[in-house]
Every structure is written in C-alpha cells, then in structure tokens.
C-alpha cells in the first residue's frame, strides 16, 4: 500500500497559491488522511455514506466554503474552494459529492435566489452540518434534458402543492431539506421552472435509497417522491425567476468544483501507481523500471499537470468574475475524462492488487463513472462546446 499521500505538483503550481490557499490545502489534506482514509474502504464495501464526518466537515468550514461569513460560511476565494474539492475527492468522490451538493447545489441557490429569511434559516445550519441538503432536478424521464420536467408546483390558496418525482438524488435519504426544481406552468415552458425549499419531514415527501449501484457506493443516492406536498407561500426561492437558467447556474458552481475535485482522485491514483511501481518486483526488477509502466506513469503525470492548469486558470477566471459556463463545461469534460483514464490505468498497473479495496484506484475508477455522467454527461458537455464552437445546437 502507498505511504503518506504526497500530492502531485510537477509544474510547481504551489508557488501560484497564496499562503492561505496552501494552508487550506494542508488542513484538508491532513483531515482526509486522518479521518477519511482509515474508514473509506469499509464504508465503500458496506455501501454506506460516512455521515459521522459531516459535523467535522462543518466545523472545518468545508460546506459552502466560498459563501460569505455573515451566513456562517468561511468566505474563501474560489481557488481555495477548488482545492478543498480536490483534497476531498483525493479521499473519495462520494465525500466530495456530499460537499458539492451541500455547498454548490443547496447553499448556493438559497444564497443566490433565496429571501433573507430563507438564508438566515438555512445557511448557518447547512454550513455547520447540523442540516443536510439535497438538490432535485433530474427526473426518471428527464435526465440530460431537464427542460421537460414533470414535477409540478401548483399554486394553492395559501401556498404551493408539489407533485412528482426526482431520481438519482445525492444525499436524498439523509437530507433535512431539499431544493426541488418544479414546473409552475405548462410542461416544457422552461421559463416557469422555479426552485422550492422543501423540509423533508413535510407530509407527502418520501425518499427511497437507490439500490444496486456499482459506483459511488460511499454516497447516498435516492429517489424522491412528492405526493400532494403542501408548502407555504414562502417555500419558493423568490429570486429563482430565471426559469431553467437558475438550476443550471447551480450546476455551473458544482461543475466548477468537480473540475478541481477529479484532479484529486487522479492524484490519488497516480500516487498509488507511482509507489507501487517502485515496490513491486517482477522479472527481477521493479515494474517501474519497465518501459511500458514508465509510459503509463508519464502519461498520467502529463494529464494531471494539464488538468491542474485548467482548474487553476478556471479558478482565476471565476475569482475575476469572467468565467463562462462554457469554460466550465470544457474543464468538467476534460478533467473528468482525464481522471477516468488515470484511475483505470493505475488500476491496471497494480495488477491483481488493483482490484482490492485496500488499494484506492479501483474505487476511484468506479466512482468516476458517476462523475462522468452526473452534472451533465461527458456527451452533453461535448454538445455544449460544439454549439459554442459552431453556433449550431445539436442536442
């Protein structure tokens, strides 16, 4: 097994970081080493999200870390936020997914589209981990194309009545609150889609664990069903008037974190492959001394370095306020694809040991298939970029 995780920094990106960003990196890296690594293998095999880590994440300030301090958040810049995602995903994509959903898909929409009262009620609790949130956009029949969503919020005399179902919802069964996107007009009218803050103990709300997963096993993925869920007037996010554009803005936040996060899983796999290649002796020498494995390692290092630079530059643009969703699509697509490749190659380099849970590469490899699919599949981001390049939509 690999020794202490050393990180990967061939192009000395460290010197581009501020002292504060490095301190954030060291803190989260140490925490992952001390708290996540000892339990993640078992949690994965037991198909269990290690919920006991949530209060610690809250105390560290990981949840919604780039949101302002006045709501109990850490108020970090976006590069520091990206680094947190990288370090969490170095541990496991499921842990990072938890933090992404909580921060970018639950806290962000409440922050960006919520009333002051909604912000005061929910953000401090979500930041501390006292409350867990989930984000419901995808439906059984509307995945890549959420525009057609069926889930409806119907206006009643004193509020809203919610009916429908959401599928593949991270944190769904553990959540105290769900941010649910629902149609308030005719199906297909994307301008009438609105966000609702739904406490999960509201009558008519049920969540069911998704059985039979082969990926992201240390994460809760659930189906949500809403049957005549009666909500007060102020359950709606009042500023979520941009229709489908607003949930997509949330996804841009989360995808930004993914572009950084997967660099972490790739680094973990490379680190494991590198140390294994030096220790494993076959045909009278370490396999790291064989040309084929050296090509493998050289490719890994090259791709990780490219992905790090993409993530870093994206972070600079996000902090400068110039980042576009298309640039995020490129980074999500390229970096996740890179991480999938590296995890698979690392697993192969490890031979039979590579299929064991004691090593990390296969866990990352399996996890990354979910990451490849969620937050806009790889293909959908190809189409986003294709449209950006040609001006022709090909969905």
């Amino acid at each position: 097994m690999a020794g202490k995780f050393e990180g990967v920094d061939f192009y000395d990106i460290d010197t581009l970081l501020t002292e504060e960003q490095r301190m954030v990196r060291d803190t989260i890296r140490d925490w992952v080493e001390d708290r996540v690594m000892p339990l993640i293998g078992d949690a994965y095999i037991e198909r269990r999200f290690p919920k006991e880590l949530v209060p610690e994440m809250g105390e560290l300030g990981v949840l919604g870390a780039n949101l302002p301090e006045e709501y109990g958040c850490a108020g970090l810049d976006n590069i520091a936020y990206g680094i947190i995602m990288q370090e969490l995903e170095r541990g496991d994509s499921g842990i990072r997914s938890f933090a992404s959903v909580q921060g970018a898909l639950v806290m962000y929409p409440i922050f960006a589209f919520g009333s002051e009262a909604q912000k005061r009620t929910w953000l401090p609790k979500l930041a501390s981990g006292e409350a867990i949130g989930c984000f419901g956009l995808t439906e059984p029949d509307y995945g890549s194309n959420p525009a057609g969503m069926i889930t409806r919020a119907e206006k009643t005399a004193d509020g809203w009545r919610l009916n429908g179902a959401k599928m593949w919802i991270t944190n769904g069964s553990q959540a105290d609150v769900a941010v649910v996107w629902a149609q308030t007009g005719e199906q297909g009218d994307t301008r009438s889609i609105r966000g609702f803050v739904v406490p999960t103990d509201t009558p008519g709300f049920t969540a069911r664990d998704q059985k039979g997963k082969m990926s992201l096993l240390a994460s809760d993925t659930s189906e949500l069903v809403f049957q005549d869920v009666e909500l007060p007037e102020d359950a709606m996010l009042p500023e979520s008037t941009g229709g489908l554009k607003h949930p997509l803005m949330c996804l841009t936040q989360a995808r930004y974190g993914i572009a950084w996060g997967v660099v972490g899983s790739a680094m973990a796999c490379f680190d494991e492959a590198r140390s294994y290649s030096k220790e494993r002796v076959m045909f009278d020498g370490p396999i790291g001394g064989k040309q084929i494995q050296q090509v493998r390692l050289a490719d890994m290092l090259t791709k990780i370095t490219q992905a790090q630079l993409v993530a870093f530059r994206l972070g600079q643009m996000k902090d400068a306020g110039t980042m576009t969703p298309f640039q995020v699509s490129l980074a999500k697509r390229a970096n996740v694809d890179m991480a999938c490749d590296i995890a698979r190659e690392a697993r192969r380099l490890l031979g039979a040991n590579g299929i064991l849970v004691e090593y990390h590469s296969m866990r990352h490899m399996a996890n990354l298939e979910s990451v490849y699919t969620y937050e806009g599949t790889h293909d959908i981001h190809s189409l986003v970029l294709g449209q950006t390049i040609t001006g022709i939509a090909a969905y």
Partner: protein
Amino acid sequence: MNVIVCVKRVPDTETRIRIGEDGRSMEVTGVKFIMSPYDEYAVEAALRCKEAAGDGDVRLVTLGQTDSQETLRQGLAMGADSAVLLVGDVTADGLATAKALVAELEGTDAPLILFGVKAADDDQQQVGPMVATLMGRACVTGVVSFEVSGDVVRCHKEVEGGSEVIEATLPAVLTITKGAYDPRYASLKGIMAAKRKPLDEKAAAAMEGRLEVVSLSPPPDRAAGKIVGTGPDAVPELVRLLREEANAI
C-alpha cells in the same frame, strides 16, 4: 488567563533531508516547512487553557526570518490571538535564542509561557529551560498535561515506569510533549480570521551565537541483512544471533 507560546519553524518531519554543499547545513530548496510538532502541542495546550479559564489571550512568539510569518499564521489560524516575529538569525546556540526571546518576554504579565519540549529539527531541548532561568521562573519540562488552579500549575509527566505530578508556582515556563494535546485542525474560518489578527514584526535583540555546526552528514547506508538459513533448522542460530549479536532478546 494569558498564555505565551514560543514556536519554531522547522522542516516538515516527513521531508527527506539533503545536505547542502557546504556540508554543514540543510538544503532547503523544495523543502516544506511547518511549525515544530511539539510546539503545536504547546499551542493546543494554551488554547485549551484559555478556553478552560474562559478569558485571556494566547500570544505566539518566534525568532526567525520573514518566512516564519507563515508558521505564526498557522498558529493564529488554530486560534491564537496575536503573534510577534522577532526577525533575526536562528543559530545553533540555544542561549542566544533564549536571550533574544527574553528581551521580548521580559515584563510580560502572562503567568504561563509554553514551549514544545524540543524543536523537531535540532533536538537541543535548551531554549525553554534557559528562558525560565533567565526570567527567574519555575520550569517544568516534558509536560504531557497540566491544570491551573489559583497560582499553581499542576503538571503531569510520564517518567520511566510511571507518571509524575509536579506542582509549580506561577509564573512558570512549561515545555510540552506528546500526550493530551493533539493539535486541532486550523479551521477554514480560522485561516480567514488569521489574516486579520495582529502579527507584529520587530528586529530581534542582537545576540551572538557561541556554538557552530561544523559538519552534517547523513546516517551511513544500512548494511545488507543476513540470511542465517531456511526452515526450522535455522531457528537455533537465529535465536543465538538475536541474543548475542543483536542483543534483541
């Protein structure tokens, strides 16, 4: 209760040490520096002391170059309230360091001054006791935990085959070792808050070091192991060697 903690910036204990071209210093390029782990215990101890008392300030003091600011900010991010960097050369001479610190510490009203039991780099264990001596304070070294009540600090130490309790009258100097004070993580809010906490920088009182490191060399390569045989037949010889040569059993 106010507590002062003296901390030192040292190479990460995970770092593979390379020796510089002069043969008497460490090559520092590419080396990561951290707060000496024993000093981290001391910072943790000070923070808990403040939390238990419900009031007071934790102030950090270090002697070093500008890069030691980073070490101080790490302690501020953990929760210390203020810090001062005495800019000066850290020599091998513990007494010179102690005098430079005392020039700053003299006249402080803090009943407790804490140190790590030793710096993780030079392992000299001198500075804490020397500061105590120069300031005429009681000193307890190698403390694993302590409690303050009134003007007495009750210190617990682990000694050969048991534990020892020593009470000292305040003001005192304690040097802290691994035990009850696992350092907390610097929270992200703490890291942000650290930027706004006072970190003073002043020239250290000039002190002449009277010790000099004359050479530094890596440990010799480990000799190859010895295979005494295979199977049960080899056991008596193995036992004999373990007993007579290795003195291991």
